[in-house]
């Protein structure tokens, strides 16, 4: 019974969303004089066309999933953690510290240290946003935004200042890490299996925390009705702090992956918009951990698939962002229309 109801509503919603999105992106493509079919082919399937593409897909999906899992926590508590970009950046910066300070330690130990440092950096940054929110009533959206810019400033300062390459001050980042410090990859692929494994376990932990622990249920209560939660004895401010802190940890680990597994050094734009994309994903799935993995993979596949667009079709690859954004927009629209209809009945 329940399944039936679930599917009829959800299928309607899904159809409305996809139809709207495809209509919109097709329109955009047609306006630009581009054949939509060819573009869709690459966007949807391009990321699976070769093992190296799949490897890239997974290496993008890993930090994305970590951030999305973290955001699932904050969303459960009713927070828009726009500061996740900054948390990721700080994670990356902190992850660089042990690598620069003690480069002679055995690599596995350094990796552990880097991940721990990354988690610390991200969570510190998140904690400051949380404090601003709780003690100074600065809306977390604006606190987060401000902290993002500050984080960017710190990264820039390091890359152009104390950590610059000898004789150079360039956006291309710090001197690359020695090869032995890179996270080990599969032969001939840029896939460091540790990254997706970490991300999957983070997702598992978040799902478990939210679904099966008392803490998780009190977080959800805080997000759904803070007044009632407070009346029922939940320390809501503490929950806000904890979820932001937890999100910071995961974003920080994502930052460490960017350093150890992707860029092999600090670049100013180390976050690469992954945090914002994760926000989009979490908005789309309404912070349900069960839907996170497929949607993360889907969004990552768009991003990777779109890389080939300029080469194959001379189409700007930003169309993947258009597709991702309009997907969420139309999902919101479908939700709104459905709620309206339900209300009328």
């Amino acid at each position, binding site marked *: 019974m329940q399944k039936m109801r679930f599917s009829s509503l959800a299928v309607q919603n899904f159809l409305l969303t996809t139809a709207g999105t495809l209509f919109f992106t097709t329109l955009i493509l047609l306006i630009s004089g581009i054949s939509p079919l060819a573009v869709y082919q690459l966007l949807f399937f391009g990321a*699976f066309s070769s093992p190296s593409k799949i490897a890239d897909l997974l290496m993008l999906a890993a930090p994305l999933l970590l951030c999305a899992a973290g955001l699932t926590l904050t969303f459960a508590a009713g927070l828009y953690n726009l500061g996740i970009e900054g948390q990721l950046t700080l994670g990356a910066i902190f992850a660089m510290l042990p690598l620069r300070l003690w480069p002679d330690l055995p690599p596995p130990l350094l990796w552990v240290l880097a991940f721990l440092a990354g988690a610390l950096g991200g969570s510190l940054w998140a904690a400051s946003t949380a404090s601003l929110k709780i003690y100074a009533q600065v809306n977390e959206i604006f606190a987060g935004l401000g902290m993002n810019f500050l984080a*960017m400033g710190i990264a*820039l300062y390091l890359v152009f200042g104390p950590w610059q390459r000898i004789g*150079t001050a360039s*956006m291309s980042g710090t001197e690359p890490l020695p090869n032995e410090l890179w996270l080990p990859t599969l032969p001939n692929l840029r896939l460091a299996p540790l990254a997706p494994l970490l991300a999957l376990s983070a997702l598992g932990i978040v799902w478990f925390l939210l679904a099966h622990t008392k803490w998780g249920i009190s977080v959800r209560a805080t997000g759904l009705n803070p007044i009632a939660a407070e009346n029922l004895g939940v320390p809501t401010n503490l929950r806000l702090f904890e979820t932001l802190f937890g999100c910071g940890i995961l974003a920080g680990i994502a930052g460490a992956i960017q350093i150890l597994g992707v860029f092999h050094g600090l670049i100013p734009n180390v976050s690469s918009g992954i945090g914002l994309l994760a926000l989009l994903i979490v908005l789309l799935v309404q912070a349900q951990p069960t839907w996170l993995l497929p*949607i993360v993979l889907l969004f990552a596949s768009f991003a990777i698939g779109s890389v080939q667009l300029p080469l*194959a079709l*001379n189409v700007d*690859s930003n169309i993947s962002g258009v597709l991702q954004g309009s997907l969420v927009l139309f999902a919101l629209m479908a939700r709104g229309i459905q709620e309206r209809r339900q209300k009328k009945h």
Partner: protein
Amino acid sequence: MHLAHHVLPTQPLSARMTNALALVALADSVKPFLKLESCVKRMFRSFLPKFGLVWLSTILLLAACSSSQSPTSNLPTVSSTTASSPNPDSAYTFGMLLVGPNNDFGWSQAHYEGAKYAEAKVPGTKFIFVDKVNPADRPGIKVEQIVDDLVNKGAKFIISNSDDFKDGTREAAKAHPDVLFLHVSGDDQLTAKAPKNLGNVMGKMEYGKMIAGCAAALQTKTGKVAYLGPLINDETRRLVNAAFLGANYCWQNLRADKPSEKLDFSVTWIGFWFNIPGTTLDPTVVANEFINAGHDVIISGVDTTEALVEANKATKAGKEIFAIPYDFKDACKQAPAVCLGVPYFNWGPYYVKTLTALKAGSWKPSWEWLAPDWKNLNDLDTTAVGFLPGPALAAENKAKLDEFIAKLAGKDFDLFVGPLNFQDGTVYLKAGEKADEKKIWYMSQLLEGIKGKSK
């Protein structure tokens, strides 16, 4: 929505041409999927009720199908590069990574047009490219990934055009030992970091910059010349120093008014080759700062044309400001009224030479530094670096500039000659000492007399 029709982009000629190329490429990429149509249909029918997951699982399964049914389709495994090339008897494909857009009126367009020139001149070659490879336009996308794509499309020779691609190009070259790489502006050959299949090339732009500096010094009324610097490294310091030397020489020796005071020569670095909002300084703001501080000639060292645009704006507002853009021969066109000229790269002849050698199998990766054709600086079939005077350059100054160019072309004249000191007072060249190539290439500081940061 009717508004959108006004917005309809008119594709530039070049874009249309690449479109045609892309169609060919598309046909190849589509083939394996056509076979899979039934596979897709089956999947959609059986999974439809589970919606969201369908989409994803379809894609995943399709991927699985595609790699199992057509293993040779377009896998980039190193050994099969040649085998998997779509048409074995087709053209020699060479690829290019551009840091900016291929229509930037600057560095990237110069490379793009050079490659198009070579493609036309050397029969049997095919040119493919990816532009805007930079962290602002393609966040998170790395050089290696794009090289993979180029190799997949059959590229056997790949040019990467930014100093920023140094690490990525080296890694990509290691990953594709059968493909040859040319990194423009790099020095891996000099530092012996280069794998066997990676070469470096650069043009001797310092001459172009000397001429630019000279033009600036000849035309300035306030005696204040500004240099809009990109990021700071050996190359950019070299170019600023060259411009300064040229300017200083002409200021002291070629001005009719024989100015007694020293030339004011300032540089502000924005932090990258072009503006990345919120990350670099804004070149527009910096250019305006120059203008407000009394500089009346701005020499641009960045890939984009803000200096020219702002000079033009200020001139329209009643001031008299000039600018010297950079990189691309047609750069003046954006605002001819204030353009004193442009030092530019002309990569065509070198690419022709290289492609010919490549086709003959005789190209060996090395480090090359291409000099201008002093016989005719602007002979597009021979020179690597040129200087086109702009409409705003006064006739008398143009004559003097030609005089200066003639001097440079002469055997005995050089400006990198001592005594020259660095900004911190240490000696760069002792009196009478002439700099060798390495001393010019590795420029560790700005010269004494330049206002601005060295690091």
